[in-house]
């Protein structure tokens, strides 16, 4: 018995030595300092990487920018799908070169733009985003009162679901998106409760289901959004937005501001990116333009590339302006 034990121990020791040896070899072969990845993509002349956020409007920006870069400026454009905050991080590292639509990330701006200076502004996208509370038009038509928060509160009972604990349900979307709704409900003393769908796909599916059944519902929603072409929603009036009323997230009791959507570039790319960087800084269009492309992707089921091609062919002047 003791004999086998000793043997086992020896086997163990041999195998551990082997593993350790292997690890050491790896360590030795990789002795030099590693490439931090910046020089690889940023600033190189013929290829760049853009991030594709999870919503279609932003996909439309990337599709058109990619199409123009590839056909007019002869670049190879790679696209990468990732979450918004992760994209900021990747932008700072140079894994991606530009973010074309940002709804405002003050914490990341402070870190990467002001402190590390690895990200620089690329200017306005030209589209203004707006977040708010929305109800379906058929419900608002039948009960005009629900378009103000005070009136809405009287109808809260109609918004009850099994998830909302006896109060009216306010449907929330993906955790990606900025929301002060819990604070707003509390501070305005409304008989509502937020229910987090957890993803945009789940939220949209729920809206479509409710809309089809002509049920009353209340949702956190925003424009521009491709679904707005399919369902007719009306915004609920919250107390007017004033500069600074959302400074303390716990004390918010006002509407959401209108956000001019921003473009951000990796600092090295902005400096050495040549024509591509210049083009992306110039790239600017309207919410209608963006919606047109988004609609081609969602309703007409065109691929992003096909939709971009169709739009660019129809709007040569706009493209010429970006390239000037």
């Amino acid at each position, binding site marked *: 018995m003791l004999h086998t034990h000793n043997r086992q121990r*020896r086997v163990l020791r041999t195998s551990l030595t082997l593993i350790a040896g292997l690890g050491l070899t790896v360590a030795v072969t990789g002795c030099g300092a590693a490439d931090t*990845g910046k020089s690889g993509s940023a600033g190189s002349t013929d290829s760049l990487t853009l991030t594709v956020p999870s919503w279609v409007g932003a996909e439309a920006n990337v599709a058109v920018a990619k199409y123009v870069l590839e056909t007019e400026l002869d670049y190879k454009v790679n696209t990468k799908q990732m979450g918004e905050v992760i994209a900021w991080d990747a932008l700072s590292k140079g894994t991606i070169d530009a973010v074309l639509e940002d709804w405002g990330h003050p914490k990341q701006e402070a870190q990467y733009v002001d402190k590390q200076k690895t990200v620089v502004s690329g200017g306005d996208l030209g589209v203004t985003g707006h977040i708010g509370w929305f109800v379906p038009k058929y419900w608002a038509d039948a009960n005009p009162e629900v378009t103000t928060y005070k009136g809405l509160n009287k109808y809260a009972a109609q918004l009850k679901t099994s998830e909302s604990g006896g109060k009216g349900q306010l449907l929330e979307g993906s955790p990606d998106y900025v929301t002060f709704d819990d604070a707003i409900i509390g501070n305005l003393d409304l008989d509502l409760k937020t229910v987090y769908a957890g993803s945009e796909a789940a939220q949209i599916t729920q809206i479509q289901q409710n809309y089809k059944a002509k049920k009353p519902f209340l949702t956190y929603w925003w424009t521009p959004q491709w679904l707005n072409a399919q369902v007719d929603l009306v915004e609920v009036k919250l107390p007017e937005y004033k500069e600074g009323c959302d400074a303390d997230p716990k004390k918010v009791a006002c509407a959401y501001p209108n956000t001019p959507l921003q473009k951000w570039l990796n600092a090295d790319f902005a400096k050495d990116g040549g024509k591509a960087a210049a083009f992306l800084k110039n790239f600017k269009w309207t919410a209608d333009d963006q919606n047109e492309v988004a609609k081609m992707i969602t309703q007409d089921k065109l691929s992003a590339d096909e939709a971009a091609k169709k739009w660019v062919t129809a709007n040569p002047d706009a493209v010429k302006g970006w390239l000037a």
Partner: protein
Amino acid sequence: MSTLIPEKPAPEKTGSPPGGPQGPATRSLLLRRLSVMSPLARRLTALAALAVVLVPFAAVLWGSGAWPGELGVDVSGPLDDLSQWIVDNRDTSPVFLYFLLHISNTSVDAVDGVYSVLDGLGWPGVTAAAVLLAWCAGGASRAGLKVAAVALGAFAGCGLLGMWDPAMLTLALMTVAVAVSVVVGFALGLAAGLSRPVDRALRPVLDTMQVLPAFAYLLPFVLVFGTGSPAALLATVIYAAPPMARLTALGLRDADPSVLEASASLGASSRQQLLKARLPLARKELLLGLNQTIMMALSMVVIASVIGAGGLGDEVYSALSTVDVGAALAAGIPIVLIAVWLDRTTEAAGERIGAPPAADGPRLLRGGPAWAVAAVGTAVAFAVGKVAGAAQWPAGWTVDISGSVNSFQEWTVDNLHAGVPVLGGTEVWASNFTVWILNPLRDVLQGAPWWSLLLLVAALALLVGNWRNALGATAALAATGVLGVWGNTLDTLSQVLAALALTLLLGVAVGILAARVGWVERVLRPVLDVLQTLPQFVYLIPVVALFGVGRAAAITAAVAYALPAVVRITTQGLKKTDPAALEAARSLGATGAQQLRQVQLPLARPALLLAVNQGVVLVLAVVIVGGLVGGGALGYDVVFGLSRGDLGVGLVAGAAIVCLGLVLDRVTQPTVRETDH
């Protein structure tokens, strides 16, 4: 055993109520009473006594509501500091420059390398290689042809669905991830298989690796390695390496002692013994480990796309943003096809190992030429493809399924979700289920005094195990309170319990049916395969459409994911019951139901326990997916942490899910006495 107890009453005594000094007479009376109790009752009495002492004390100090804030530790501050430090220093600190970044760059190169090989081979070359490889693995015989046909079908399917290129990218990432997982898992398994202490130390680590949701550790990896393949690769390795480690250890440990004794007596050194006897004897387990590792790795494909890994997961993910179930399915099916191809190929290779060793000689002779045929075949297909200029899958050879899938989905939802005569429809069920089962369950759990839940868990763990079990379970539950997520943990617990109950009820019922009726099992197999490997993201939208945003949808997703394993294990366990025992019962005139209840189910107890264990693990694995369809609580917190870059929220919620796993494991799995040999 029971005769020893009166002499050693220590544990019971510590639990006796304080206060009144007890005379020797009452004490001996107590001891006598205790000694006639069963060991279980004695343990519970001791627990009750302990409770009588501690509870009033705790209740007075910290109240009887939810977990007291005074007993919490705020870990989000340090975690946020850590993530800040990483972001500030990752381009300058030597830890990154000389170590972590090398890992990152090497993995990018490896994935790119494999992808360019696949890309260079072109679709004819890749398909030929996969088909011929499957044929060789199947023994280069008639049986091999069947495996080869599966491979051909899988690759043709990828191409036909218009997913050839993403499929190759996924395949490249999987190849590297599986290779690394196998090496890591094998090394860990080797150490655990050869040394008991290592094994004991490793087991909780492996458990944590499998139960900790990938979403929770994606963020730190992204911070350290950046987006794209490196972080995706490492996350996959963490999830996929444990089965390889476990099965390697199991294979080494279960080696036939007589063979080892024989080799020892022939004077084999320990290294010879390992290489020539133990490892070859463990080949079957090693291959099963490889198979399981591949399946685990494939289930990470979609999750990896959240951090920019590309491939099929990316296609699924982007289809979700337009709420296009058809497109998501078109990208999900290739994942299933790749899984089926690899599963059948490794399974076929594993079956051949089971053959008697005497047949090895001739087969080896046959094996060599077969591999040569495979190599030549691949080269020919590659050359033909090159000459024909067919590197890309021909655009005309694709089928667009998304339109018909979407209209089928719409039709189903329209007809099922409401207004069904008598039954009412899925939406009504979901809302009733939430109102009458989930809400009360959650409210009871959240409303109960914190100490009562700790006691309940301890008592349940004592019922099935020993003191160590009870202590572990109670500590795990308490940890969620200390981390400050008591309320959310109980919310998630109520969902997990409901999902688990449904899964076991359905799973065992279907399993019994499948074990008794042959054609049911045959029909079920492909269905279960698909349910197990289809990314859950694909059925996220139909689930919401049918059940509405909320916990009912989350539970449906969990049941759909956990059911296949429970059905399989139940069927296997029932079919394996001793035929002699069944025959005896039958000859004694037992009816079918009696046979099942009194012979088969008791004999299948280990399998049923395993079913419960797997049910727990799998239901917890989809808590995150539940968070994406309105399940809220811990699942939502983990998703929130990743998408907002908030390490404090995400990791803490992830840790709480692991704690829940520990609690559920301890209160359902009887302690197995470890037999050291």
